[in-house]
């Protein structure tokens, strides 16, 4: 292969793949037991970070950016005037092996534009996986896009070689999707997601009976929604996410702030800043749902359809629900301690362990890792100073905002002190 041509291809096909934000390499369970190359690391490894601060764990490329579809939000849409390229199966295999050997990456994230039809595309993706696993003895991570519309046989076979599979919802609601990609629907996504999920459960059930059962998508499935291209509320977005977590046992839902790539009047115009803060708040909500025991209805509901911009959703919930506070650090149960602003999972665990040895004091909480300046409004501990005044939620919010500087506000002009 000519050096310049492969460089050009890599540039085009990596550039086209970068809007897929998933770069997780966690959850893999593949062991290097064939004296080959690669071994999974259960928590994943980010080998570097791009200048926009996103993790680079996988070689994320499209097999080709030729596509028969014309989705408005996608750079590779048929009508877009961009350079097109396609890798051969061997080129992808060689790139993956050589990047992996140098410890550049954890593995491969392979997606593709749809050329000819779904099955033809899926077959090529499957071929890459099979060559890596069967010919190259490669045990590194593979994240594979499921191509909607591909036949069940192909998808099922791919699941035997991939660690994770994903299909993007693209827009949080069916209406949003129809607006920008009339040829697509959420149903096209749901069918293969459900099919893969059934197989994962089936393999897991069989494994209980038979010891040597092959792995099937051991790192589970994920999906992605584009945020801010269409006018959904945060509630719409998170309710969709919550439903997909529940119905398809997804490992992750990704939220991708829309980066304008088109001048179409149905979407934000070129040059509009991507909604980074909103994206961040959505991820925080996602974490509260998955690790902090919050129900999505507690955070977002008809009275509060959008997340606060100036404070995080956990603080926001606490301020709306002051009847639960202050919480006694030395007595409250773990689930309630987790809900205190300024206390994370690690600190909560340490608190529950440590208080068996004696009542905890402020200095100990600080050493344990509690963000005390935030937490102090919501807790009592062994040496909490006696306080006559009972502050309102809004006052506490003002206190906290006065001594914290949001990284998103470049100028703090609208962040005035109330006193």
């Amino acid at each position, binding site marked *: 292969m000519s050096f310049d041509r492969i460089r050009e291809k890599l540039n085009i096909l990596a550039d086209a793949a970068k809007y897929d934000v998933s770069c997780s390499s966690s959850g893999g369970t593949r062991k*290097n037991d064939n004296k080959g190359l690669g071994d999974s690391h259960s928590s994943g490894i*980010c080998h570097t970070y791009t200048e926009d601060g996103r993790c680079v764990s996988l070689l994320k490329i499209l097999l080709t950016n030729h596509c028969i579809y014309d989705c408005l939000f996608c750079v590779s849409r048929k009508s877009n005037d961009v350079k097109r390229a396609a890798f051969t199966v061997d080129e992808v295999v060689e790139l993956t092996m050589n990047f992996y050997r140098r410890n550049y990456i954890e593995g491969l994230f392979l997606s593709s534009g749809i050329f000819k039809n779904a099955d033809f595309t899926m077959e090529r993706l499957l071929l890459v996986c099979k060559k890596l696993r069967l010919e190259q003895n490669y045990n590194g991570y593979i994240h594979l896009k499921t191509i909607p519309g591909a036949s069940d046989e192909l998808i099922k076979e791919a699941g035997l070689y991939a660690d994770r599979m994903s299909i993007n919802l693209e827009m949080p609601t069916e209406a949003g999707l129809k607006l920008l990609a009339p040829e697509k629907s959420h149903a096209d996504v749901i069918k293969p997601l459900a099919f893969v999920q059934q197989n994962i459960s089936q393999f897991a059930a069989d494994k209980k009976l038979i010891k040597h059962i092959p792995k099937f998508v051991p790192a589970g499935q994920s999906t992605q929604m584009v945020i801010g291209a269409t006018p959904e509320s945060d509630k719409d977005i998170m309710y969709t996410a919550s439903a997909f977590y529940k119905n398809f046992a997804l490992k992750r839902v990704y939220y991708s702030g829309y980066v304008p790539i088109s001048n179409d009047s149905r979407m934000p115009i070129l040059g509009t800043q991507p909604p980074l803060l909103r994206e961040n708040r959505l991820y925080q909500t996602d974490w509260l749902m998955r690790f902090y025991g919050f129900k999505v209805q507690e955070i977002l509901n008809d009275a509060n359809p959008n997340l606060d911009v100036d404070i995080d959703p956990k603080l926001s919930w606490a301020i709306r629900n002051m009847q639960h506070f202050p919480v006694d650090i030395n007595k409250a149960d773990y689930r309630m301690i987790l809900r205190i602003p300024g206390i994370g999972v690690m600190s909560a665990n340490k608190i529950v362990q440590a208080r068996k040895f004696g009542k905890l004091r402020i200095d100990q909480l600080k050493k344990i890792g509690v963000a005390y300046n935030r937490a102090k409004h919501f807790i009592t501990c062994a040496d909490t100073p006696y306080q006559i005044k009972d502050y309102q939620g809004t006052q506490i919010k003002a206190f906290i905002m006065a001594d914290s500087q949001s990284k998103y506000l470049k100028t703090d002009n609208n962040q005035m002190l109330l006193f």
Partner: protein
Amino acid sequence: MNYIFDGSLPGLLTAVFEWFERKPGKVVLKSTEMFQPEAFAESLLVESNSDKADRVWKGLQKKLKKDWLRIFYCSYLSEIPEAYNHLFQFTIYIFQNELGAQNNYGNEHVIALAKYAKSVEREKHRMEAFIRFQHTADGIFYTGVDPDFNVLPLISNHFKNRYADQQWIIYDLKRKYGLHYNLSTVEEITINFTNGVNSKNPSAILLDEKEELYSVLWKDYFKSANIVARKNTKLHVQHVPKRYWKYLTEKQLS
């Protein structure tokens, strides 16, 4: 009073043994390297003894599960002078209390060890992430590093399992020793670099002919994966602190 030990792990454990034998009350443990004679404090030079050290280690194994033995070992590998004393006090504390005393995060030595271990584990993880091998002309994948803490013992298995079909060397330039995997076992090595050899970036003649190709492709990839509209230098530097840039192929010019 002060106990002075040679800086080795057996030395540290021997010091614990000596303390229990003499019960001298409040003692601070220091390594010979950092010890400065004090006018008013007595000091005892602890001589490292492997039998005594073994007994203390076996005792610890009865008191602590694997996770805390690892925290203990990681804290030792931090090579931070204050960590030695915390390890010493922690061990005494563990022996003097009921099972489970390590969960007392209100105790200053417990929390100190947890913190040292966290830093060391983070450095270990960074080495697993940021090491970049260069394929040399004699077929070995080589890298030179100078980690903040002595983490080579912690990363050995990770690289052995992962790169089972290629020979590799990871060399700690600061501590002047390295690991060499010869396709069956990992061995500790020392290299005498001849004058003029750049141990961090071997010159092109020592490298495999394809090395240049893949490093250029990787740099290209790194550039292509970036979304300019989302530029966030602060976050970037937070994840990849500047002191690690020297390792990273993608951060080298041209």
